[in-house]
């Protein structure tokens, strides 16, 4: 039998090789299945013939024929004869372009990534579930399905997505399914709710309660109040100070006796992402060339491919709306129709609080609240892990919400304190979809007013303009009715008085309509001035963008859409303008310090850097060398100022630095006397000049090491290095080192990874005209040239005119295809 040995051996090798090439090995995809020209990625190519100019698609579930026109950016313009067909077609066409993205994002929200990639996502999945994202989504879904309109919208959209999914054979699955080796699953309305919760997490899931409690414990109430005030020194609030109230405020709950939370140092620090923010602004007819309002919006989010947004026009009896949608959620989120336009920016209100718990014993089955032991609800999460048995995870719930971490274990997200229950508005059920559907239909200010009443989370500054010459803005959402500073620190979970006591009525959220100044705007700053009767939060985005926008708007006369576009691309740094003159004066001016300490003499390179800075006009243009030096210098200055007092290494505690506003005030007004200037870790007594000089030396040294001697290589775009990555971080599927102007603190808030994810300008009128762009494209297929065809226009700050049709058979030079969808 020995003669069979060679053949058998070769056969074994063959079968092994076949198995290896056919199977996903860890993170390595099933190579042969991926590379097969019959079923693999080669089949995902997009030839011109794959997108016919005319075709009829037969889709089960449609009630009447639907017509779809596509323009040269591949934006679908959907003309349906009823609402069911409209949202069905929206679901179908969105899935056609973005199926993998929309499904993947719902898995991210639901904590179901381990099912796809295996155990390395397990901690991530646990975290999502312990934060209660799926719990919040289910609560919202219940609220949404109770409303007949929302139910119809969600169910029709889901049916449309499913019509597309069921039309696919594995050969036609989007590329990423082949790479990661899994298959799409049926869509459900729950997934739409999950996507909204993911947005809520991105935009309202940050909290500094633990850090502030530690600061309060270490430095006491006086220092805390001084360095972490509830209202900034320089501010330009969204609702201007002095705006009259059109309501009688409710009494707010009494402040209970002060509570000192236990110090907690179990968690390492991760700063909240200060770059996530947005701008919106509208000018009244009194300031526009047309005599009718103009409105602009640019939400700043992490920039990814496929793009976060998907453009669509939705036309059905009773509505004709255009704008951007979130793939996976029905209706237009930011957009316009023939009468009105609206947009959103994030509200930095404090809608997430932590309660320190007292359990009866280590079994954690009961907790003390309101004078008695109450039962802890236990929810078992089943996490499916690819290649391993399912993991079960028990999450404890008190009446506040989930106990995100119930053991002293290493948490996935460092800002989450241990042994605390979380209360968060995103856990409440609310019908946000209905708010958007109503906005899509809105014809006037009253419709806008009514639409916002069901919108809860994440709270947004809804800006509005109509062709009846109304402009308005509302930091709108469901805010807990709090005593001043409630939830700025960790709350006492045993005291019923520390619970949220109700809500600010939806008719009493901050608001302003047609202000005398002739414009409204927001850039994530404080919702209202100190004259607003309720406490919403204390920690908002720095005033820089908002202030610059208001300065520019106040100068506008006879504005056009292009004037607003220019403002969206404004690169002036207010912080540099505020601080750099002082920094230069005090670095050069303090001769005495240099005489005392000759080592502090500046090198030629540092003197050159100062000369460059002295000539700077504070604009963050792509080639601005001064912007690069200033940013690093200022950042290092902040660090040297606060690290010894609030840094973890120096103090052993999780704390945070005071805000930029408070820091600037200290430097500009109190530098000579403030005890915080001194570095406690050295025997010397440092002054402001020492900090400035050493920070400058650090900045110049590190830039010289990075780029060589001072020169054009130090240009701002080079230092900032904006990247747009594929959602799954796939090399080759994104764009790196994009040369674009702006910085997180300028109106054009383009940072290393975040930036304007959609820029829109709408000119209202008898015939509305609108312009828009996002850094990517309509298609989610990396084989398509529509994957990133808008990127270049975005990079240089241009906008496309948006094709807005009044009828399905209207002619427009940019229309390229006409499809028919029918049963």
């Amino acid at each position: 039998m020995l003669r069979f040995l060679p053949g058998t051996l070769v056969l074994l090798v063959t079968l092994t090789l076949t198995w290896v090439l056919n199977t996903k090995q860890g993170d390595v995809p099933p190579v042969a299945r991926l590379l097969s020209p019959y079923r693999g990625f080669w089949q995902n190519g997009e030839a011109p013939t794959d997108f016919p100019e005319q075709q009829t698609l037969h889709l089960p579930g449609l009630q009447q024929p639907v017509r779809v026109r596509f323009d040269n950016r591949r934006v679908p313009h959907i003309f349906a004869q009823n609402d069911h067909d409209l949202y069905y077609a929206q679901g179908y066409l969105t899935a056609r372009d973005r199926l993998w993205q929309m499904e993947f994002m719902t898995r991210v929200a639901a904590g179901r990534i381990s099912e796809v990639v295996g155990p390395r996502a397990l901690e991530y999945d646990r975290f999502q579930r312990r934060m209660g994202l799926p719990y919040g989504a289910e609560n919202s879904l219940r609220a949404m399905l109770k409303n007949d309109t929302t139910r119809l919208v969600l169910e029709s959209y889901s049916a449309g997505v499913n019509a597309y999914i069921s039309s696919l054979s594995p050969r036609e699955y989007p590329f990423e399914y082949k790479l990661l080796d899994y298959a799409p699953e049926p869509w459900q309305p729950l997934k739409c709710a999950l996507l909204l919760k993911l947005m809520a997490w991105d935009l309202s899931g940050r909290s500094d309660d633990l850090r502030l409690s530690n600061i309060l414990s270490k430095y006491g109430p006086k220092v805390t109040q001084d360095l972490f005030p509830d209202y900034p020194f320089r501010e330009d609030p969204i609702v201007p100070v002095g705006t009259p109230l059109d309501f009688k405020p409710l009494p707010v709950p009494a402040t209970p006796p002060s509570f000192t939370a236990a110090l907690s140092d179990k968690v390492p620090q991760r700063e909240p992402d200060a770059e996530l923010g947005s701008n919106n602004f509208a000018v009244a007819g009194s300031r526009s060339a047309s005599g009718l309002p103009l409105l602009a919006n640019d939400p700043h989010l992490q920039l990814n491919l496929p793009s976060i947004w998907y453009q669509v026009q939705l036309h059905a009896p009773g509505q004709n709306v255009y704008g951007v949608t979130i793939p996976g959620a029905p209706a237009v989120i930011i957009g316009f129709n023939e009468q009105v336009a609206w947009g959103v920016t994030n509200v930095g209100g404090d809608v997430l609080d932590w309660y320190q718990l007292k359990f009866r014993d280590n079994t954690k089955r009961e907790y003390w609240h309101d004078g008695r032991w109450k039962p802890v609800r236990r929810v078992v999460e089943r996490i499916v892990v690819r290649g391993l048995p399912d993991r079960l995870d028990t999450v404890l719930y008190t009446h506040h919400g989930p106990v995100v971490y119930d053991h002293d274990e290493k948490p996935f997200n460092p800002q989450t304190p241990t042994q605390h229950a979380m209360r968060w508005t995103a856990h409440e059920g609310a019908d946000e979809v209905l708010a958007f559907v109503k906005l899509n239909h809105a014809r006037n200010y009253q419709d806008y007013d009514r639409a916002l009443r069901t919108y809860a989370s994440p709270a947004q500054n809804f800006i509005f303009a109509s062709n009846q010459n109304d402009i308005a803005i509302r930091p709108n959402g469901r805010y807990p009715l709090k005593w001043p500073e409630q939830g700025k620190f960790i709350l006492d979970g045993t005291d019923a008085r520390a619970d949220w006591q109700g809500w600010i009525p939806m008719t009493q959220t901050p608001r302003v309509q047609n202000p005398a100044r002739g414009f409204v705007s927001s850039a994530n700053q404080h919702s209202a001035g100190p004259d607003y009767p309720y406490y919403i939060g204390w920690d908002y985005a720095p005033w820089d963008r908002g202030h610059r926008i208001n300065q520019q708007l106040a100068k506008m006369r006879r504005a056009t859409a292009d004037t607003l576009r220019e403002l969206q691309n404004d690169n002036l740094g207010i912080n540099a303008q505020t601080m750099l003159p002082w920094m230069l004066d005090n670095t050069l001016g303090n001769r005495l310090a240099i005489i005392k300490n000759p080592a502090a003499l500046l090198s030629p390179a540092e003197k050159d850097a100062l000369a460059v800075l002295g000539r700077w006009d504070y604009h963050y243009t792509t080639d601005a060398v001064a912007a690069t030096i200033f940013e690093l210098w200022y950042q290092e200055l902040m660090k040297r100022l606060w690290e010894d007092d609030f840094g973890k290494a120096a103090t052993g505690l999780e704390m945070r630095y005071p805000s930029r506003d408070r820091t600037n005030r200290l430097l500009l007004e109190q530098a000579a006397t403030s005890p915080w200037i001194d570095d406690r870790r050295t025997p010397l007594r440092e002054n402001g000049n020492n900090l400035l000089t050493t920070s400058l030396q650090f900045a110049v040294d590190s830039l010289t090491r990075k780029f060589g001697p001072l020169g054009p290589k130090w240009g701002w775009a080079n230092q900032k290095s904006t990247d747009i990555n594929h959602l799954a971080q796939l090399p080759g599927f994104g764009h790196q080192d994009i040369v674009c102007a702006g910085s997180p603190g300028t109106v054009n808030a383009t940072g290393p990874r975040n930036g304007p994810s959609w820029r829109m300008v709408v000119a209202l009128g008898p015939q509305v005209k609108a312009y828009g762009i996002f850094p990517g494209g309509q298609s989610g297929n990396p084989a398509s040239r529509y994957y990133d065809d808008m990127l270049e226009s975005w990079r240089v700050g241009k906008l496309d005119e948006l094709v807005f049709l009044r009828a399905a058979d209207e002619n427009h030079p940019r229309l390229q295809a006409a499809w028919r969808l029918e049963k």
Partner: protein
Amino acid sequence: MKKTAFLLLLIFLGSVLLQLVLPWWSVVPLCLALAAWRGPTGGQAFLAGLLGVGLSWWLPAAWLNTHGANLLAARVATLLPLAGQPWLLVLLSGVLAGLAGGLAALSGALLRRAAEPRNALPAA
């Protein structure tokens, strides 16, 4: 030589037809069976399997690379990484499948020879 070419052609045509309806690994039993049936030497079998199956991938991959898949192939070639060269990816695709086909054909040929009644076989 002729025998090899004929086997190659059979494998190529069979591979194309099978893969239109079955997973790519259907070429493995195909090569094994065809080589066992035709009874070539080991070297001939391997060559016919490598090129027959290889061509069944090279040709469509090359065609698709010039008809819509080029952009994606360049991205995949960056991911793998193959220096972002789509044609390198075309080459590699066919080589991988060809290797499986060649080895399958080789094992078919060797097993056929082992099963044959005569002991004395000419060397490959």
